């Protein structure tokens, strides 16, 4: 079934209030149109007109040439299904029974389902991958499962046109992707036309063929997302520049333009059109946003063209203070080209060194080609305490933070051993350990200790904001200063780590806030608590996020409300490292949280990050996917204190050393690939 919906000169509103003015749109089978716009711009009103729920004041809506208003409700429901923003599902019904209600427009008065109806129900459940929920009752479903049920109900209608109002608002990342892919698949296979109101620009960029931008009831622009999701247009549409844009999908637009969302699959430049379907060449290949994809995007493009004015416009004066004097250079594209060419010529079949080759090319881009300096390694471990530790979120008491710092200094801890083996420069920075250290450190060398205490541990984020904004700024400044000091001691590459009982809680809260994901999706066992305690931890985090409602577009606000001192310091270190072209090796989950904040402040610093390993903490994968990073190792490490970065460091140094010291075919007099 292929369907064509045409909107001509549509104006609509409510008594005493005009909402939409003179809208022209067309969608046809196989196409996904995203409707974007600020709250109150008329998106839902538009959907209500398209669903024949609201009579237009002027203009027309036609489906395959026949006007919508003339159709009977059953006829309409067979052509057009709606997934509303808010819905109620009556208790006691099972998912299968609810989805069968989607067959209502086909059922007779006694409502007996035929084999065709049952097939449609099963097909809808299977398409969304929720067939296992079949016998579950509504009251046993999570918010996401309820949303999938409503979506399945709409698919069971077997409509030609699907109208979605914020279809993924309750879904976690995995279900968002899965449901959008299912919709994409139906569009491709069955010729379903889809109009989706979306707030998530990343989703719009990934899954929509075209987007329509609404501003105060008028159609601002309509066309392929790669042309419309530019900083300038988004500012015009939403009134702010989206500084939080997904680093992995953000890319360069035309020179001189503010930049746009990267859309995979690419599309030729062409004038934006509001009608009709784009040529086949524009159609996006179906795509899952796996970590593989995230890494295969060309790293140097990430964040480019976002210099200066773009990202910072939305930020506060505090951001200006934190970022003062910080100029993050673009990746050196020339050095990358040279490195890539050299990798082709080295004495080995091209590609045979796998990740080490791409890693060397990336390192060349970061350092401007000087890979020798990567043999000078430094580790910075930032330590601080967390008020939330008093809530039993960790397997260990808060005193352990200070005691572990003592072990670092004595050379007993994992990072001490690894740093020693690497001949690396290790510094442990006290950004805010709770109890005074002096008594604890009696009799041990404090040569590696840096005292830069901002305050005595953060506050309990379940009760009050963890930090004041000025404390966040100060901790970031500590991180920047320590990275600068390490650079001054000659470091060419820096591994970052942390120590802080309770800090996976803060990190999970930061990640959930910035990614907009559910707390449960990013909460893990940390130092090793059991499942019941993990659930309690997730609930505390969710409650804290509800309590403080940190602004996801303002990383400083997130760090202040639910972050921690060492996380803020790590953020500062990342920013400073990027500005100095020093590759930053991230450790695990907590450093990834800091990296999310840093990238949100200055998108370009994503280009200077290396993910050392994959942590078992569930939020780590999500954070790395957002950062566009693929971890080098997967060893199940969950210690922290930069140990993962230290384990990966020899691999990185090996990549650099091979790149620099191997001979080329030519030098060795070995024949290359035979023609």
């Amino acid at each position, binding site marked *: 079934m292929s369907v064509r919906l045409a909107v001509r000169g549509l104006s609509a509103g409510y008594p005493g209030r005009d909402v939409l003015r003179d809208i022209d749109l067309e969608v046809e089978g196989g196409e996904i149109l995203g409707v974007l716009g600020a709250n109150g711009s008329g998106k839902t009103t538009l959907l209500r007109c398209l*669903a024949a*729920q609201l009579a237009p004041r002027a203009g027309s809506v036609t489906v395959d040439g026949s006007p919508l208003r003339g159709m*009977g*409700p*059953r*006829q*309409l*429901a*067979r052509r057009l*299904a*709606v997934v*509303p923003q808010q*819905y*109620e*599902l*009556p*208790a*006691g*019904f*099972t998912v299968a*029974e609810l989805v069968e*209600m*989607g067959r*209502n*427009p086909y*059922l007779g*008065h*006694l*409502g007996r389902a035929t084999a065709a109806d049952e097939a449609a129900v099963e097909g809808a459940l299977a398409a969304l991958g929720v067939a296992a929920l079949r016998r579950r009752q509504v*009251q046993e479903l999570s918010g996401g499962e309820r949303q999938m049920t409503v979506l399945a*109900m709409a698919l069971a*209608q077997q409509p030609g046109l699907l109208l979605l109002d914020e279809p993924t608002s309750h879904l976690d990342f995995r279900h968002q992707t899965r449901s959008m892919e299912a919709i994409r698949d139906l569009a491709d296979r069955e010729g379903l036309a889809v109009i989706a109101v979306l707030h998530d620009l990343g989703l719009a960029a990934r899954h929509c063929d075209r987007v329509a931008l609404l501003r105060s009831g008028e159609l601002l622009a309509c066309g392929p997302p790669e042309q419309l999701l530019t900083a300038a247009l988004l500012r015009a549409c939403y009134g702010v520049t989206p500084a939080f844009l997904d680093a992995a999908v953000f890319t360069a637009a035309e020179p001189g333009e503010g930049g746009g969302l990267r859309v995979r699959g690419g599309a030729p430049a062409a004038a934006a059109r509001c009608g009709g379907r784009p040529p086949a060449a524009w159609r996006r290949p179906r795509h899952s946003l796996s970590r593989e994809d995230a890494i295969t995007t060309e790293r140097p493009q990430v964040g480019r063209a976002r210099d200066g004015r773009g990202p910072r416009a939305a930020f506060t004066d505090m951001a200006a203070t934190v970022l003062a004097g910080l100029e993050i250079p673009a990746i050196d594209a020339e050095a990358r080209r040279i490195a890539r060419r050299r990798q082709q010529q080295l004495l080995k079949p091209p590609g045979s060194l796998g990740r080490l080759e791409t890693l060397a090319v990336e390192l060349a881009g970061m350092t401007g080609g000087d890979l020798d300096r990567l043999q000078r390694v430094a580790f910075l471990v930032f330590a601080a305490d967390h008020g939330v530790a008093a809530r039993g979120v960790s397997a260990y008491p808060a005193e352990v933070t200070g005691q572990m710092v003592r072990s670092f200094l004595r050379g007993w801890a994992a990072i001490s051993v690894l740093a020693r083996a690497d001949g690396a420069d290790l510094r442990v920075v006290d950004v805010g350990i709770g109890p005074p250290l002096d008594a604890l450190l009696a009799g041990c060398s404090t040569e590696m200790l840096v005292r830069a205490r901002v305050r005595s541990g953060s506050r309990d984020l379940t009760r009050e904001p963890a930090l004041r904004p000025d404390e966040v700024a100060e901790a970031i400044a500590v991180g920047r200063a320590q990275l600068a000091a390490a650079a001054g001691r000659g470091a060419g590459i820096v591994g970052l780590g942390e120590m802080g009982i309770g800090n996976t809680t803060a990190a999970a809260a930061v990640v959930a806030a910035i990614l907009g994901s559910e707390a449960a999706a990013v909460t893990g066992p940390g130092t090793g608590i059991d499942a019941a305690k993990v659930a309690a931890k997730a609930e505390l985090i969710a409650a804290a996020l509800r309590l403080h409602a940190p602004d996801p577009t303002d990383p400083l606000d997130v760090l202040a409300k639910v972050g921690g001192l060492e996380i803020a310091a790590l953020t500062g270190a990342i920013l400073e490292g990027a500005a100095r072209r020093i590759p930053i090796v991230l450790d695990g989950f907590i450093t990834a949280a800091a990296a999310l904040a840093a990238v949100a402040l200055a998108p370009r610093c994503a280009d200077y990050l290396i993910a050392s390993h994959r942590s078992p903490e569930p939020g780590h994968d999500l954070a790395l996917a957002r950062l566009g990073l693929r971890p080098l190792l997967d060893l199940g490490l969950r210690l922290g204190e930069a140990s993962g970065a230290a384990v990966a460091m020899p691999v990185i140094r090996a990549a650099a050393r091979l790149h620099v010291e191997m001979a080329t075919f030519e030098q060795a007099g070995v024949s290359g690939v035979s023609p």
Partner: protein
Amino acid sequence: MKIPAPTALTMALASVATLALVAAVATSVGSVPIPLRSIQAIVAHHLFRTPLDGVPASWDAIVWQVRLPRVLVALLVGMALSVGGALYQSLLRNPLAEPFLLGVSGGAGFAAVLVTATGLTALGSQVLPLGAFAGALAASGLIVALSRVGGRLPAANLILAGVALGSLLSALTAFVLIRGQGAFETSDLLGWLMGSLARASWPTLRLIAPYIVVPLAATLFLGRAMNVMLLGDAQAQHLGLAVERIKPLMLGLAGVLAAASVAGAGVVGFVGLIVPHAVRLTLGPDNRLLVPVAAVAGGVFLVACDTLGRVVFAPAEVPVGIVTALFGAPFFLWLLRHQRGATTA
């Protein structure tokens, strides 16, 4: 728990058999026990003119004039109340909805008090039920009219208008009753206001039967629509339901059922609330099954309650409304304890 849906025919046959059996047993029970065989003979005598064959004439009078019409009225009223309750619970998406929520009891009560106070009841035995029927319909019609906003009937408006008008009418009823003390006979009226089948007779049955049988039959075809209505007006519309036609239809059916039952037995509480809930808890919320099962269960329940009320303190009677409340209130409280989290019917 779900049971496989039996075919419509088996269900219909089983329902009729159950109802006939319960009616027969209830008719046989009383201060004078009458064997089922004699009841069969008496019914056959009146329907087919067969001879009575040694059945005492007093038994004939007891069965035909007193017990049978009463049992049949109880049966119909019980069916009407529970199906009416199911309709309102689906329509208003509220677990506490019941047939008297929308001012029906208030309207019927006030009309009954008025016809009694003005002496119109002297004109015939059916004046009171007729008046109650008219008052109930008028009140629910008024509430629907008051709740209508821009061609739509929001559930919240219906409930609020029903509660408000119901309170007003109850106040007026109480006022007239107190002012009229001594001026007219109120004991009969009070029994009726509590819900009683003591007045039930063949004329009562003839008066209410069409207004119960026809809406009941129509509601059997609305199960699917009632399910979809539970999703809310907008979503029901998206699923192809002509909400603004179905809603007045459901309100009309429920209103007529409630008015007819109040005319037959006064204000019998709790049946319309608890029977649909009991069925829902055992068989699930699917109205395609719930409506017929609740109809049968409601009829059986009210007949059982009325029989208990007749027998326990015989020859004195406990009004059926008191018996249903004695059973209904504890059940309702139990329901409150176990319905946490689920907010829709």
